[in-house]
């Protein structure tokens, strides 16, 4: 089905498949990193080698510290994003169906979206105390604006024909939003979600560090910070590796969702 339209003229002998090239770059990076740590004589208290990082990863996975930290962080992210998505969709719907809703969203987005989530953390700590609610609120705050703004744009750019078909079928407002607007605006909603989760993920980890919860129920930010307090660079690196890998994983999940929806439906070109 997917005939390479523009490559036929080009004579290519042999190239590595994409994933192999990426792994190759990763491997070269790891080797360079290991060589640097082994040969430069840099203090092991400043930079952990890949091997030491791997050891820390294995050890802290085995003793349950990393799994529980991952769980806490993902839970904070999921709850925050969940509330953010619902709120964002409601705001976008209000904005679509009423003049006041549109003005409200315009003003709120203009005022609040430039605020970095971390910047409101001190405030949420006052409101919610030193609990995960404070972190979750920051994630909600950070995800609502990209989601509602993108959804709003998505709703607004739905074609006249599509709207008229919905009217012709005599759909109720709820049916129109749920069955027509949401899927029709899905490309925009998904790009809003992508922005929101990327923001949310950074915020969760950042907030957990600022938060400095010292006990044993913190997330990945806490894990890194704790490793810092106990002067354990391999664990700091292990935490960073996990945060990055989870990010890649979540992004892959998003690509999968796009593949199964808007790409399949022909609403977005496959990458």
């Amino acid at each position: 089905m997917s005939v390479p339209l523009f490559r036929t003229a080009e004579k290519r002998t042999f190239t590595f498949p994409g994933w192999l090239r990426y792994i190759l770059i990763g491997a070269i990076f790891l080797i360079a990193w290991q060589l640097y740590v082994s040969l430069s004589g840099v203090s092991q208290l400043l930079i952990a080698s890949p091997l030491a990082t791997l050891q820390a990863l294995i050890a802290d996975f085995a003793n349950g510290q990393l799994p529980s930290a991952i769980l806490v962080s993902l839970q904070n992210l999921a709850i925050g994003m969940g509330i953010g998505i619902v709120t964002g969709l409601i705001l976008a719907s209000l904005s679509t169906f009423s003049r006041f809703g549109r003005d409200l969203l315009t003003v709120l987005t203009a005022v609040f979206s430039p605020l970095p989530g971390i910047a409101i953390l001190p405030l949420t700590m006052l409101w919610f105390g030193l609990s995960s609610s404070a972190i979750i609120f920051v994630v909600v705050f950070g995800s609502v604006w990209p989601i509602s703004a993108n959804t709003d744009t998505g709703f607004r750019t739905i074609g006249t024909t599509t709207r008229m078909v919905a009217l012709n079928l005599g759909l109720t407002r709820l049916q129109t939003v749920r069955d027509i607007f949401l899927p029709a605006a899905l490309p925009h909603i998904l790009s809003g979600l992508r922005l929101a989760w990327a923001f949310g993920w950074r915020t969760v980890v950042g907030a957990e560090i600022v938060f400095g919860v010292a006990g044993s129920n913190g997330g990945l930010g806490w894990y890194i910070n704790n490793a810092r307090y106990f002067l354990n660079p391999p664990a700091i690196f292990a935490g960073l590796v996990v945060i990055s890998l989870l990010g890649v994983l979540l992004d892959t999940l998003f690509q999968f969702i796009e593949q199964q929806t808007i790409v399949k439906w022909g609403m977005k070109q496959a990458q």
Partner: protein
Amino acid sequence: MGQPDKEPIVQLSHVSLAYQHGHAQSATILEDVTLSIQRGEKFMIIGPSGCGKTTLIKAIGGFLKARQGEVTVNGVPVKKPGPDRAFVFQDFEQLFAWRTVLDNIVYALQVTKHLPRRQAIDKASFYLELVDVAAAADKYPHMLSGGMKQRAALARALALEPDILLMDEPFGALDAITRNQLQLELNTIWRRTGVTIVLVTHSIQEAVFLGHHVLVLSSSPARVLEIVDTSQAEDLDSPAFTAHSLHLQSLLVRQDKDLIREQVVPLSIVQ
């Protein structure tokens, strides 16, 4: 060949309609339009481009409100759109991209007729068969050609089993061959279903070929120039067909200022 009943299904009496452009003066689109469409006939609307053909059919569909006069369907004033007046648009995007061809129809049946899914699938399959797209039932709209999309849209409109099929230049974006084919099939379908068809076109040939009556609108603001009875002119080779075509052409040419200028120029050269 079938004949329409003598009972009117759509009636417009002294309908005037204007678009509001913000606070500026409104532009009159339809002026004092009075007509009646018989149950089971094929009623064509033709006129100079931009004159208000689409406005008229949208008024019958209930998408636009008359400023003066009244539109009635089955004797009841039209207040809003509804599935009893199923619309087929020129725009290929009228199918829901996120549903398969079959699901597009099934969904429409479920929300309008509250059919159980099994029954809705049976009915949808029947109409897909009728318009000859059964093979594409499980495909997503973006995988279909323009002609197939219009057939699927026609199937969805027919499946609603409407009183009237409102078609706004349904074949306008198709190539000539596909277009001719669909015109023939529309006739066949009309014979099998007996549905009242109101069709906007800019093709004189299409109007004469398909229509029992052809409404000719004047240039903006649109008024009724003439309603031509073309029920005896289905055969492309018949003298009646040619006569009607020439008559319609002369009516239209007089309306279209651009066309008049084109005619005047050669005359002046002759002198």
